[in-house]
């Protein structure tokens, strides 16, 4: 009890609250603007958080995270373009609802579902993270290796395109991640003499290039018709009948979303599609999905916001990122001297509690702000989709430059952007590459450490129970995807 009070004490001060509010509002805007993703937003703001105390700095990032994952739904519904990758599934029923003149109903439900999913996952976070952190003491090199392998395998299995393409994409990402200093001895590999690659391929410019720039290039190639209509934003508050219709799905999606978010590397984009597909599959009227079924919007949006709390679980308890945003947040935590894991919960429980409460508050705030801002946001987005793309390019360039103050990073962003643009044409998913860049070093470092620890005995990965279970899950994921491919069904992709 006193731990909660000390957390509140840290939270209820002017600066932390201000940072939380600005983070949420900024997050909603960032999420709503296509091309700016939650990850980019967090990445760009992280340096700003270094100069602050841990609680306000991290609250800003958490607020932005929650707000952005919600904000993506607005542009998904209004202009048929996901503001962030995690809103891609929202388009399926969001756009038809907009076309029917029910944009307000869709946005209202998206808001409600997002808040529901976010708070639900926060409850899981608060209860499970401390438990899991104690479990973390059983985690050693083999377990971290297997966990990282599981993350990449699952993404490769679930992403769009064939299983082979997904795994190929993941392996390409893994080998690119070997560029730079090796994780054990610092020997530089594949740098071709340039200093710029000694630290490896910088993750943020790579991410910005692969997602934002490739999307911009695609939009330049095929011009979209500018939209001129007025948007009807009436009926924002979900009706009772709508709520009754979607409540079961929202509960299920919250659980699924939290779980998917907790898987290393898997984030809102995967979660939203898994939840959407599950809602459609288990529905009594699957044929309505895709025509403007409000349940589809609810499933996708509660799923993707649930993944935020879920992603924070392994992040705080194990130091393993649940998705790309939390990968950055781990960096921010370390700079503040807060090492994720059991020690965090033992020595800094007040900070952890402040973050927990703040995270729950963020989920409430974006709901309130989102509804208030709906009118403003819709005008902002509809100004002109075509003007947005060049603006996004500039933001991408600035974002890539800002991390290391290095022009080389901008060119890297462009190269990967062109690569992403080309590769998307043949349905090769980009998600696995990004994940591999995040988890890659973890894979190699722990693989080699495990072998040193076991004196060269490879069976260590299978004789240790946790590691064996994780690898088994990875195998199951591959096999079930293979079976599904044989049968001809396949989950419509995420990127």
């Amino acid at each position, binding site marked *: 009890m006193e731990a909660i009070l000390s957390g509140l004490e840290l939270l209820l001060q002017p600066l932390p609250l201000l940072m939380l509010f600005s983070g949420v509002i900024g997050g909603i805007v960032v999420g709503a603007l296509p091309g700016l993703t939650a990850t980019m937003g967090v990445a760009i703001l992280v340096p700003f958080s270094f100069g602050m105390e841990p609680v306000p700095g991290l609250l800003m990032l958490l607020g932005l995270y929650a707000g952005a994952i919600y904000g993506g739904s607005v542009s998904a519904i209004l202009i048929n373009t996901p503001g962030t990758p995690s809103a891609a599934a929202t388009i399926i029923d969001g756009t038809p609802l907009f076309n029917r003149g029910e944009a307000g109903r869709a946005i209202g439900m998206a808001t409600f579902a997002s808040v529901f999913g976010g708070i639900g996952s926060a409850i899981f976070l608060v209860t499970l993270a401390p438990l899991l952190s104690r479990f973390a003491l059983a985690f050693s090199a083999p377990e971290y290796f297997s966990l990282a392998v599981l993350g990449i395998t699952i993404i490769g299995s679930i992403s769009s395109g064939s299983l*082979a393409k997904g795994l190929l994409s993941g392996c390409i990402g893994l080998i690119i991640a070997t560029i730079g200093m090796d994780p054990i001895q610092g020997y530089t590999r594949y740098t071709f003499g340039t200093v710029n690659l000694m630290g490896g391929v910088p993750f943020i410019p790579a991410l910005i290039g692969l997602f934002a720039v490739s999307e911009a290039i695609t939009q330049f190639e095929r011009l979209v018709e500018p939209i001129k209509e007025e948007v009807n934003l009436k009926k924002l508050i979900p009706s009772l009948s709508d709520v009754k219709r979607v409540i079961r799905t929202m509960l299920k999606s919250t659980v699924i979303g939290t779980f998917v978010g907790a898987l290393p590397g898997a984030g809102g984009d995967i979660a939203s599609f898994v939840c959407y597909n599950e809602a459609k599959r288990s529905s009594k009227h699957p044929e309505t999905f895709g025509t403007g079924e409000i349940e589809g919007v609810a499933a996708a949006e509660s799923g993707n916001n649930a993944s935020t709390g879920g992603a924070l679980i392994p992040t705080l308890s194990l130091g393993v990122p649940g998705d790309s945003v939390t990968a950055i947040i781990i960096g921010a935590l370390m700079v503040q001297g807060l090492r994720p894991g059991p020690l965090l919960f033992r020595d800094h429980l007040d900070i952890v509690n402040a973050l927990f409460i703040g995270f729950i508050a963020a989920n409430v705030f974006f709901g309130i702000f989102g509804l208030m801002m709906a009118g403003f946001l819709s005008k902002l987005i509809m100004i002109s989709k075509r003007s947005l793309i060049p603006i996004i390019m500039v933001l991408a360039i600035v974002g890539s430059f800002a991390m290391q103050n290095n022009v080389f990073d901008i060119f890297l962003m462009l190269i990967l952007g062109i690569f992403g643009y080309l590769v998307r044409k043949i349905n090769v998913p980009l998600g696995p590459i990004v994940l591999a860049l995040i988890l890659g070093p973890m894979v190699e470092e722990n693989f080699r450490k495990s072998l040193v620890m076991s004196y060269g005995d490879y069976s260590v990965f299978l004789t240790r129970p946790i590691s064996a279970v994780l690898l088994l899950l990875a195998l199951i994921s591959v096999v079930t995807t293979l079976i599904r491919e044989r049968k001809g069904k396949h989950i419509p992709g995420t990127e």
Partner: protein
Amino acid sequence: MFKKAEIVFGGAAVLFALLFFILAGNFPGARGHDVGMAFYPRVLSILIIVLSVIVILQGITRKETESESRESLFYTEDKGVQRVVLLILATLIYPYLLQYAGFLILTPVYLGFLMWVIKAGKAKKILFLALLTTVLIYVVFQRLLKIPLPTGLFYN
């Protein structure tokens, strides 16, 4: 076109993996129980080659879908590809020139050019948006967030 592109991609991936495999020959080898610097990249290159072969075979053997036989790989109507080339060129020149001329001067030019290419609207609207965006980004990043933007010779 799509099937051919998949095969080309698979082939490129094989070459890419071979490059990494060969270059790893220079890395220090195993020491004690550590497998060394070359082991992991080499295992990955082999995996990539195997998976690429699968992708190539899948590309050869599968049937072309309806949408694929209708569309071409690159959107050549309405000068789509030309726009892409212009975007890439502009995005190469702009960062290069940033070392010399600084953010505030070049960004409106870059933005204006791209907006014109993408046909975003009339000249006045483009000019206004380009300048407004530049100023906003400058204020938010350089002033508020204290994140330095590329400056040019004039500032130094």
